[in-house]
């Protein structure tokens, strides 16, 4: 295993009877980066994370976490901090006492204050967790994951239930962790939540890998959507025909022609061809695809 992978799996699979929750997953999570783990609800993110954390046994497949085999979780878990499937605490104990339980289980000490401070819940740390809002419990769960200075932090939907400000705070925290050399593997069912913080991306759909690699490569892979509006509506059909010659998926809507998935320089070409055909464009815009669009494009490809 190359030294720069914090997590690697080969053919990882989990079945529940007939249902396949995760299928033949080959994961590669680089060390010291933020890797976003994205897929719609039910895609198998939590199942994958549970397998990485030794909570459930894979039906088949192998892997390594921090250089240790997946089937010996005790050998690597002391260097891992995790939040699995939502915050989990004893509601009648204070936030601080909850962290104390975890610290005692881990056999470490002295990390509670720092974790509370990092996640900004120090002023409510002595109240029972049952009185916390969901956002505070998410933060406490983050604090719990950071106990013991882990090398790898695995976070399952840490932004669930947070307001936009809370999500931004989490992003800042994740970025800071990665800047300190910690590997962050963080899941979400919404690409937008992780778009701005991930270096690396793993896209999952229906238990199967859809994409994995650099976020920037994914962005480069998908071309922009061009929208051209002719000055005269009568030219729409002719313009659509010209756009189709340029390739891509062409649609006519609201008095404009849009071409999705056209290659680079397609807008200049369209402009030139339209001009040559005597069509004057009143509007010509190029919209970079959002990650959501990219994601849906990829998963639609996968479904075909």
């Amino acid at each position: 295993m190359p030294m720069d992978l914090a997590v690697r799996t080969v053919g990882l699979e989990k079945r529940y009877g007939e249902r396949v929750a995760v299928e033949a997953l080959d994961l590669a999570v680089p060390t010291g980066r933020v890797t976003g783990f994205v897929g719609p609800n039910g895609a198998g993110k939590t199942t994958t994370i549970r397998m990485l954390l030794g909570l459930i046994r894979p039906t088949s497949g192998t892997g390594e976490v921090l250089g240790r085999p997946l089937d010996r979780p005790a050998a690597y878990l002391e260097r891992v901090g995790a939040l699995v499937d939502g915050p989990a605490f004893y509601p009648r104990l204070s936030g601080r006492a909850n962290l104390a339980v975890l610290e005692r289980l881990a056999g470490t000490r002295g990390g509670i204050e720092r974790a509370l401070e990092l996640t900004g819940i120090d002023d409510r740390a002595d109240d029972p967790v049952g009185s916390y809002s969901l956002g505070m419990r998410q933060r406490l769960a983050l604090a719990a994951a950071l106990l013991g200075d882990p090398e790898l932090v695995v976070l399952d939907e840490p932004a669930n239930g947070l307001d936009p400000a809370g999500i931004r705070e989490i992003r800042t925290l994740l970025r800071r962790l990665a800047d300190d050399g910690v590997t962050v593997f963080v899941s979400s069912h919404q690409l937008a939540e992780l778009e701005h913080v991930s270096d690396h991306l793993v896209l999952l759909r229906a238990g199967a890998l859809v994409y994995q690699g650099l976020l920037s490569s994914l962005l480069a892979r998908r071309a922009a959507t061009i929208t051209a509006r002719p000055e005269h509506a009568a030219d729409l059909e002719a313009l659509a025909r010209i756009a189709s010659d340029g390739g891509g998926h062409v649609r006519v809507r609201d008095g404009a022609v849009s071409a999705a998935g056209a290659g680079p320089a397609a807008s200049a070409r369209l402009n030139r061809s339209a001009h040559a055909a005597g069509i004057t464009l009143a509007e010509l815009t190029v919209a970079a695809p959002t990650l959501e669009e990219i994601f849906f494009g990829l998963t639609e490809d996968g479904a075909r």
Partner: protein
Amino acid sequence: MIRAFRGELVKLRQSTYLFGIAAVIAFMLITLVVSVTDPGPVAGDRGPAGLVLSRDGLEAADGLARSLGNVVTFLGIVVLALVSVNIGGEYRFGTIRSSAVRLPFRGRLLLGKTMALFGYLAVTVVVTVAIAAPAAQLMAGPGVDTERWWGREGVAELMLGTGSLIAASWAWATIGVLLAVLLRSAPAAIGVGIAYILPVEILAVEVAPDAAAWLPGQLIVSLARGGDNAAAQAETLVGVASWATIALVGATLVFKFRDITD
């Protein structure tokens, strides 16, 4: 295992566990009212409420210890409830996930937790006896001659009785651990546990009286209530210890090899 033990100690600070002690004390006082006030000429078995000794039996050196032992069935209900709430809560709150990630040796996790619960139960029994013994003296009143309770032999019997009650509470706890691990829910474990101790075992003994010699609940009850026959008591203790071991080993194996999907 020491890690799990220490972690559990933090949890035992919750008020639930103080209520648990209070509940055992309350049950004990109720039991004593039945057991030591106004004894008759012959002993009477009140089933789950205990064995009311005859006047002679009550005034014997072990009269107090055996009367205290009458709380064993109620003790079982409280212990089952507490243990089920403890372990069922781990599944309900999802803390089982974070615990198993922080301490991936699942056998040690469960056994350390069980040991902490054992410690708590021992304290509960000792505190209860410390309150109940003088209370029994007061309840017995001038009509019962309690002098032998406080003699050398009586105090030794009281210690032995306390030890038996502790052992009984531990044995109940192992049944609670097994049920809670199997069912992963406090209400389910409490329901099944209590249904088993009360109607199921009692009916089983009605149908086949021999079963009393080996059914776990019957053995635990007879261990706590004590008796004159030391050899029979030793045999009972072996039976109780065997069931407790079976329950703990079973719970540990299930916990170790089952996926944590909660």
